[in-house]
């Protein structure tokens, strides 16, 4: 016991035992309490027919589908909002963050004002602003804004034509995928060669040719096997095509504009953490301000930016659960809302829902930590 290593392991084991014991105690207690209150328990309900409709489903779902399937519909709806929200928030956040250090007074003030205003307004207000703002601004289905008779905008959503591949279209898609993979390897090979021999290689043209050119040629050769399902007004609303519902648009906008305020601050502080000597050194070498920012400052600032950025990504994902306020069918709304109410299985459903958010958080963390370790300063 005098060996600190042994002691460490013993204490950790003891802690683990206590945690497991608390967990087991909690679980058995909950189960026996549910039993006494005559509340059904277990996960058997997941196979039961759901019986309600959902407005946006990325996977096939009908009223006859099971609660388990409704769970996945909600999950994917949450994921797609988080995905687009994170991309948009990152873009806005970086632009505003860099802008708030601009030498142009007006740009700087606008960016600073953006940060102060956006992050000080509660997210729910952002949501209502965008949702009801969006709905008021656009006309009803009969007076839709019409773009080339194929894209329609009204307060039921934005309608696009849906591409439908004919015979051989799958081959084109496969070629695109192969092209992307090949370009990736060419880029790696070209970089290695440049580092070793100094010979440049026109990666961009090759990639373009492989990803766009070749599949396009095959597509034309096959006689353009692609048709479009155009949305058309029928009765109350448009049918056909792909629709992006206002709930989705507002949720992504609200989440990303709100979170971008925080990301901008992370970016600003990250850039300011880079020693001013780096900028001066770059200028001394005759590098222009733009490339200096892109090639010298940002790569070094990323080490400071990434960890807080991770937590903003996690926040955005979790905050998407406010979706129910504007009827976007995310996981919390569909599963911890409607399904919970139909089945009353609060313990199981909240357990599953919390597990999903925990898993998403852990995956985000792992990915970001992996990225962080890749870009970490290599000490030679």
């Amino acid at each position: 016991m005098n060996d600190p290593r042994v002691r460490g392991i013993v204490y950790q084991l003891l802690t683990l035992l206590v945690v497991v014991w608390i967990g087991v105690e909690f679980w058995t207690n909950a189960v026996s309490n549910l039993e006494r209150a005559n509340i059904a328990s277990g996960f058997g309900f997941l196979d039961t027919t759901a019986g309600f409709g959902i407005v946006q489903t990325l996977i096939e779902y009908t009223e006859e589908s099971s609660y388990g399937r409704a769970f996945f519909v909600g999950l994917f709806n949450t994921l797609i909002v988080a995905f687009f929200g994170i991309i948009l928030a990152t873009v806005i956040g970086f632009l505003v963050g860099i802008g708030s250090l601009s030498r142009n007074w007006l740009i700087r003030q606008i960016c600073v004002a953006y940060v102060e205003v956006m992050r000080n307004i509660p997210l729910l207000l952002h949501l209502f602003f965008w949702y009801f703002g969006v709905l008021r601004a656009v006309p009803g289905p009969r007076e839709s804004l019409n773009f080339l008779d194929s894209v329609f905008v009204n307060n039921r959503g934005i309608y696009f034509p849906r591409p439908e591949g004919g015979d051989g279209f799958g081959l084109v898609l496969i070629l695109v995928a192969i092209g992307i993979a090949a370009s990736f390897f060419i880029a790696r090979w070209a970089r290695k060669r440049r580092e070793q021999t100094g010979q440049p290689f026109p990666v961009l043209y090759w990639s373009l040719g492989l990803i766009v050119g070749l599949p396009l040629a095959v597509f034309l050769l096959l006689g353009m096997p692609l048709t479009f399902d155009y949305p058309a007004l029928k009765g109350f609303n448009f049918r056909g095509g792909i629709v992006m519902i206002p709930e989705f648009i507002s949720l992504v906008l609200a989440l990303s504009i709100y979170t971008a305020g925080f990301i901008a601050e992370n970016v600003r502080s990250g850039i300011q953490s880079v020693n001013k000597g780096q900028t001066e050194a770059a200028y001394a070498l005759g590098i222009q301000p733009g490339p200096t920012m892109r090639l010298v400052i940002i790569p070094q600032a990323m080490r400071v930016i990434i960890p807080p950025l991770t937590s903003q990504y996690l926040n955005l994902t979790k905050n998407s659960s406010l979706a129910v306020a504007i009827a976007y069918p995310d996981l919390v709304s569909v599963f911890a809302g409607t399904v919970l109410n139909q089945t009353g299985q609060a313990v199981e459903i909240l357990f599953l829902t919390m597990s999903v958010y925990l898993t998403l958080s852990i995956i985000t963390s792992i990915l970001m930590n992996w990225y962080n370790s890749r870009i970490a300063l290599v000490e030679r």
Partner: protein
Amino acid sequence: MSVHGAAAQPADAGATLAAVKAKGHLQCGVSQGLPGFSNPDATGEWTGLDVDFCRAVAAAIFGDASAVRFTPLSAKERFTALQSREIDVLSRNTTWTLDRDTSLGVNFAGVNYYDGQGLMVRKSVGVTDALELDGVTLCTNTGTTTELNVADFFRSNNLEYKILAFEKADEVVAAYNANRCDVYTTDVSGLAAQRLKLTEPDAHVILDTIISKEPLGPAVRQGDDQWLDIVRWTLNALVAAEELGVTSANLDEMKSSENPQIKRLLGTEGAFGDALGLSNDWAYNAIKAAGNYGESFERNLGVNTPLGLARGQNALWTDGGLQYAIPVR
């Protein structure tokens, strides 16, 4: 799994009344604001049919209609609040269904409002029949039976639809107002109440088609028979009072009535209060607090209120309605 499984008696039999008495007030779950059923007025005082019922139960227990506190609950919070003992009785326009009665661990005490799910549309749309609603978008509240009824109705009639479910009624109103959806669907009483919040209440019409039966009533936790009895018989007492012509105004005269039914109801004959674990004038106190069922209905929902709902199915059975008190004897 349970180590307590062998116990024959549910652990909390009779416990709710004792707990309520120890607290000194009844905790009653109501809606977050539905005019006519439970809605805070300008002074913050709760009013409505469901609220009156809570006051009646409080009065039956304490002899004091003010010994009640209200917990506003969203549709999806309500059963969990009851299960977890946050509230003692759920009086929140809640539909009695087999599934809820059996698998949620709750018991319904009776029906205080017979309702049905309806559909409200803009008059300008020109629809008169629900079967013309192919392809509509509907707005409603999440966590209610309405989503299921809509699915049943539209599927069985081969109509396409899209449904948007909001957390709060105010958001449904706002979305419908902003023309996000063609149809607002919920219980007809709810539609009548929410229509008042629209910018132009007269520009909307509630279709005649009723797509479901919605018997609304108070609910309690399963496993406490005494408590269920108290809530159930308070409800019966209010309806019985109307049947017998006992009102909050003539209550004291009625106490000296020679009608044995009235005597039993008001506790001047028999010992029904004792049987419930309450004082013998429990029903007297309940009626004094809320008036009889008809008084409460007319005050909160009736034709002279902004909601202007006719008694309809909720008339007494003697008037061709469904309200029928189980005999107090």
